[in-house]
């Protein structure tokens, strides 16, 4: 499964189905919704947390959360 955690810096992807019971509402409100574009801007030292752009907004999430968000790479 490809998730946000497996993105390389600069790689763009589209968010696929997200499991509603695990992903918190707050993240959805910040734009983490199926079909929206996500890309990895930078990783923190030690590769965690991840600095991402979702739907035009910049935010940081931990790797453990990123692993739960399935994406589809944009070629």
């Amino acid at each position, binding site marked *: 499964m490809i998730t946000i955690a497996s993105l390389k810096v600069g790689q763009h992807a589209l968010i696929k189905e997200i499991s509603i019971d695990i992903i918190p509402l707050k993240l959805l409100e910040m734009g983490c919704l199926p079909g929206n574009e996500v890309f990895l801007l930078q990783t923190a030292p030690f590769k965690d947390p991840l600095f991402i752009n979702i*739907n*035009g907004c910049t935010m*940081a999430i931990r790797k453990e959360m990123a692993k739960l968000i399935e994406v589809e790479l944009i070629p």
Partner: protein
Amino acid sequence: MAREINVALIGNPNTGKTSVFNQLTGLKQKVGNYPGITVEKKQGYCLLPRGLKANILDLPGTYSLNACSMDENVVIELLLNKNDKDFPDVVIVVADVENLKRNLLLFTQIKDLGIPTILAINMADQMARKAISVDIKKLEEKLQTKIVLISSRKNTGFEQLKELITNYSLLSTTPCLNASDIDPEYFNRLRKAFPNQDLYKLWLVITQDVNFGKLNRQPLLFPSDFKTESTSNLKRLQQKETILRYLFINEILKKTILIDKVNAKDLQSKLDKILIHKYWGYIIFFSILMLIFQAIFDWSRYPMDFIDVQFAALGEWIKVTLPEGVFTNLLAEGVIPGLAGVIIFIPQIAFLFLFISILEETGYMSRVVFLMDKIMRRFGLSGKSVVPLVSGTACAIPAIMAARNIESWKERLITILVTPLTTCSARLPVYLIIISLVIPDHRILGVFSLQGLTLMLLYLLGFSAAIFSAYLLDKILLIKKTGFFVIEMPHYKLPLPKNILYNVIEKTKLFVLGAGKIILAISIVLWVMASFGPGKFNEATTIVREKTSSQNLSEEAIDAEIASFKLENSYIGIMGKTIEPIVRPLGFDWKIGIALLSSFAAREVFVGTLATIYSVGSKEEETIKNRMAAEINPVLGTPLFNFASGISLLLFYAFAMQCMSTLAIVKQETNSWKWPIWQFFSLTSIAYIASLIAYQLLK
């Protein structure tokens, strides 16, 4: 009488809502708390055309009307309660032009409550540079409201905004989204159960309990035949609502906003490449910290010395000018030194808040959170604990409140428990005066002052103690980690001097008024206790004269003997002597013991207390520092404040939990007495043991 209307400012965090508030109200604002909770309440007013007066309320930043924290809940409580005296006649949603999509989510929710809502798009000055263009007319049409482009940096658009507020009654209150689209069947049942209520409002009331836990208010009375939905189903519906709203917003923005991505590349990512670089990021962060501490010690010394000297002169002047008597003594020996003990902190506190607000305003603070998260997690903390730990250098009270945005309860609790170990500004005057007494005024390599370095070591000690205790607590506390971590990484901004200035003034004012009252009251109580006493106190003159009659002393020496005899036999002297056996192993005399005791009300009382105790009975008005330097240890005959006792005192202050207000805030934030009590005893015992070891080794 001008007609008054209520205006509420609402918006996502980092949209510059507070600068809009400052721009509208100027200094006509006051900051308080919402009743019963410690969420800051900012109110002000502004005059509008046609003799209208707008009472403006700056509500806490929130991403939606689905509250997860006390701060966010304030927004919803107000919007759901038409009877609240602050209920807005009109809401201004402040949005940031670069995050319009996300900002509109909140906008549509508020609009759907049927409240007239103006959309103020802030940072409009950035549009050209970021190659963003918005079709305002069309957007107004789609959202059925009035939109104004503003820039608090360039001060544009505010006249138009005021004009819109004045004409608020013309705004449409048609909802953006039909609430029952979320789940027609469920909303139909709701409508039948509560025929007279606004459906969307009802829905928010129901979900508020889901998001935020049970609230203390009248529960909704569902008819007995109403089938309530399970929590997980309600959550699902909330998510569906969010998705529907985004569909609506995306559809609209597709037709009204244009972002030229080719031109959008800018400085931001270049800055981030350096500021959160795996080496440079840390080097820059620690250099900034070092700059702050070195600067505070060096820069604030001058105004502080000045204040100290001025108050000494004032006390002297009062003694000379006013007729002799109890009142003059109270003023010169109780009130003035007490006041001096408050005023003298102003330079440092102002500097600290200045630096902290600059770090926050520029957007750098969230980079620090990002940089530190992984490291902090090893110690059971969150990257977000950096904010409380750094602002703890100003005051533990706002710092502990800043821990609210930490999602995991365990990480948050640990942060709350260890934050009081960071060196707060109330410790600073104690440190400064002790350091200047016991550490030589040398410079290493001609640059770093030895005293400044000592101060920095104390800050580092505070931080390391906090981190180390967090690590232990993480192992000891059996609480499961819950919650998730997300932080917005706002774009870098040049801070607005006006915002920084207001913030510094406001925070300093709160400190001076809050702590000032306690300090002043304690100084007066201390003066009374030091100036009166039972039995022997009143016959001091006779007793001392008898005792010294054979020694052939000068009149002056006899007066000094009488004064010190009086002090020892005053109420405070008796109290101090009683506790002296406890503090003697730490290298303190009974006077310091009293100062330690009174410090439990607030640490900054220490200097004032010593000033009051030493000035009672002394003839000359001296600066506080000179008086302390002149104190002699009665047993050893050496200066009382020497290296060993000084270090011991510094350590005691570094660790002891000596602030009642902090304990009160911990009780409130953890909702139990267990944690503050536990914190008080463990920290104070650590302090005693550390001082004991230090003094016994160094003496």
